[in-house]
């Protein structure tokens, strides 16, 4: 049952929110031990919230467009009074005294937070194996990863634990796991969704977005959470244009990005899925062509300077002074060092060191400065492409889900899983991944639709069409 169908039924009193929640909690109970999608299942509070929704319906009130719909929350979104860990030991015991804007908007729309989902520590990773609380497994094949870093949210939707989930996408952390788990994932335009209450990884790249089983449900959740937020200075002021509900693509100009399709190590089935989707769109009346966005090939390198640089600063505050883990030392500096040594995992430490180096005196221009220039060039190249095309097409990830442990010893191989998704973050643009059949080992494949800033309406039209064309 889609989220929209659930909400419609709950709003008119056909179904109780409580029964919806109980059903999903039962599904969680059955399969969560195997998958570990959640760091915390919020059973009691979900039931209480559901009862409040039912009471509102009984009073003749409309609880809102998400009435009674369970929503899984990535565990880097602050929830007042509920532990928020970023899957890191360093936040041990911390309960935020405030709620993230997106979570509040879900609550205000009648949605029901059902749990906090697992992630790569501080969203750094592409497999959800870098979690202090253990890896999440792919519901399609538990020997394989769900992708990451929002692997818990992707797995939760794919396993039927919740119809909807929220994640964050810094270099592909929503789209790549959505593709690997066979669900829809959206990275909205930078600034479209408030980051207030999202624990920062790389502030200029982070963006919150929805996971859903269908494109329409993703639209439902996106329209609930987006829009201006005075608490986020980078939040876009103008109101968003409605996403509409038509899959009509006739007359749309669609470009297949060569640099993101002909990447090293791409599985033939993945490339074939993109080509098949393109052919389908063409027969549905779209004009499809291949297009070059040359600077995309530098995206990965630029990303691995900018994101760690910002992370090195964003993660400085975990110093043992005010909250979370503290390991005592002889003086403050030693306490800071011991706390951080014990609290952060290997990948987080690697990126903090990389970022610290990239910002250091004497290296700034060569690394961080140069990466920002690449970013400018990528934005320019995309702008040129969007002069001729309304949206662009590419694979979401080069491969289907890989086995646990396959890439943990080789960070660079792991980083390559995000090669198709990173340019969108660097440009501040929007992108969506839509499941499109299966590939190697009968595992889900995703096709990515990229759009310029604020291009979500066209992007969703094409996404709906691809969903209809999927095998």
């Amino acid at each position: 049952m889609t989220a929209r169908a659930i909400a419609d039924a709950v709003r008119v009193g056909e179904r109780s929110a409580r029964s919806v929640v109980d059903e999903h909690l039962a599904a969680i109970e059955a399969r969560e031990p195997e998958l570990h999608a959640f760091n915390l299942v919020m059973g009691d509070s979900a039931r209480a919230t559901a009862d409040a929704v039912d009471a509102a319906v009984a009073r003749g009130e409309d609880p809102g467009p998400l009435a009674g719909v369970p929503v899984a929350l990535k565990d880097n979104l602050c929830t007042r009074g509920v532990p928020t860990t970023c899957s890191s030991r360093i936040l041990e015991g911390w309960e935020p005294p405030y709620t993230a804007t997106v979570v509040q908007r879900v609550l205000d729309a009648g949605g029901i937070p059902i749990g906090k989902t697992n992630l790569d520590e501080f969203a750094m990773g592409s497999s959800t194996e870098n979690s202090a609380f253990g890896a999440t497994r792919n519901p399609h094949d538990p020997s394989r990863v769900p992708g990451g870093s929002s692997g818990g949210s992707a797995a939760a939707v794919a396993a039927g634990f919740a119809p909807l989930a929220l994640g964050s996408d810094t270099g592909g952390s929503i789209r790549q796991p959505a593709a690997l788990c066979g669900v829809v994932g959206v990275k909205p335009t930078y600034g479209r969704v408030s980051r207030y209450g999202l624990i920062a990884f790389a502030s200029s790249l982070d963006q919150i977005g929805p996971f859903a089983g269908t494109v329409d449900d993703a639209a439902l959740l996106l329209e609930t959470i987006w829009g201006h937020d005075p608490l986020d200075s980078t939040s876009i002021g103008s109101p968003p244009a409605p996403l509409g509900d038509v899959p009509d693509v006739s007359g749309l100009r669609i470009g297949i990005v060569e640099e993101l399709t002909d990447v090293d190590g791409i599985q033939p089935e993945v490339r074939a899925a993109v080509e098949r989707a393109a052919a389908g769109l063409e027969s549905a009346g779209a004009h499809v062509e291949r297009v070059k966005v040359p600077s995309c090939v530098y995206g990965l390198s630029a990303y691995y300077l900018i994101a760690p640089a910002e992370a090195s600063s964003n993660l400085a505050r975990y110093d043992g002074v005010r909250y979370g883990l503290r390991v005592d030392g002889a003086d403050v500096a030693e306490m800071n060092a011991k706390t951080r040594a014990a609290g952060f995992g290997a990948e987080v430490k690697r990126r903090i060191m990389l970022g610290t180096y990239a910002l250091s005196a004497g290296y700034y221009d060569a690394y961080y400065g140069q990466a920002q220039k690449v970013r400018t060039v990528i934005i320019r190249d995309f702008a040129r492409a969007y002069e001729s095309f309304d949206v662009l097409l590419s694979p979401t990830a080069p491969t289907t889900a890989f086995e646990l442990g396959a890439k943990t010893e080789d960070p660079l191989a792991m980083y390559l899983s995000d090669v198709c998704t990173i340019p969108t973050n660097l440009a501040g643009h929007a992108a969506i991944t839509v499941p499109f059949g299966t590939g190697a080992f009968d595992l889900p494949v995703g096709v990515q639709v990229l759009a310029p800033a604020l291009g979500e309406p066209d992007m969703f039209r094409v996404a709906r069409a691809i969903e209809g064309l999927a095998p």
Partner: protein
Amino acid sequence: MAEYEAVIGLEVHVELATTTKLFCGCPNEFGSEPNTNVCPICLGLPGSLPVLNRRVVEYALRLGEAMHFDVPSESIFHRKNYFYPDMPKDYQVSQYDHPICVEGWMEIDGTRIRIERAHMEEDTGKTQHIGGGGRIHDASHSLVDYNRAGVPLMEIVSHPDIRSAEQARAYVSELRGVLQAIGVSDVKMEEGSMRVDANVSIRPVGTGELGTKVEVKNMNSLRSLGRAIDYEIARQIAAVESGDRIVQETRGWDEAAGVSQGMRSKEGSNDYRYFPEPDLVPVAPSDEMRAEARAAVPELPAAHRTRLVAEWGVADQDARVLVDNPALAAYADQAMAVGAPGKDVANWCTGEILGFLNESGLSPEVLPLAPDGLAELIGLVADGTLSRSLAKDVLDECLREPKRPKQVVAERGLAQVSDEAELAAIVDEVLVANGDAVEEYRVGDEKVRGKKRGFIFGQVMRATDRKANAAMVNQLLDERLS
């Protein structure tokens, strides 16, 4: 021995007197219970984001206008990264290479001091070390109060155009006057709402290049600023004269000991890894905001002094004292506006009235004697009703009780005796009663005559309860003693 000149640049941090902090809605208040004016944003809790306080930009624009700065169309914030427990995010949000105010100046006694920049930044919390006499190295633990974290600061950085401790004091004093006049800060050095660091170097007179500079910190008053700079200049000259090299360092001024000492700097060898703050957007003040800022800049101290001297005949020194006390200057302005001569108003205001204010701790607005009352008192002296000496008594009463000067004169029968015949009779009586003094006056030298004349004058005043018209008494004595 070579002649040296000092080359001094000042970095002044000023806390802005906004209602709320720089990036959140917490009260910007001094003296609250520790950690009560805090929220997720100024505590830098995970997930929180800063939103720039518009009022801070307004204040920065006023400063830009008042001190002849350029305000570029856009300025940006950077992050200054270093670990310190009183800094909640372990980075400070501050402006770096694109500040809001660039290249301004102030004129100090006819010399133009160029000001490199003025930028916005957030203040840190305060750490208190417990045990071990309050020093960090022996403390058993430390307590941090984040009430001050996120309080808006402006840092105003001068070019090294200052040449003496005296000029440095004059610069800070003038800066304080300007900040006060434009209403952006309380500028209390003693309470720490204004903090001054001095970069001092010396060089042989006539050479152009700059010597190695030493930064001196911890001066908590204008007086200590002057002392610290004088000390540093002397220290550097002595070092150079004895063949030592000046080491670039930061020194802390110890006011009680009157010396400075090299600091083990907490930030000494830091690489701050500045980069643009991604959580904030560029600051681009609109034309309307700029116009509002221009309109909000009132008459500045220099112009005010000039007006007092040129239009009202106030002495330079009195003009300075008045303008340094803006509320008193406003009081004086009102007294002058109702017709009292500026010179007299300034005399009373910078003398007896300022003395009374200092002693009572009151501000001019709450004095029982309104400015037009002071004008009335000045009129009573001018028309001969009161001697200057009795006028002081009247003023004293009017500063303590809500009475007009004329009312006090009437109640106490203080009107001056100016009847010539009446005064002549009294003078004659005094001369007869003090025959010895008169005799000594006649035979004495210049010194004795002055003394005796004063004595006799005093006896006349005493005989009239000080109500005698002093000028007439002097004239009568002149006639009789010659």
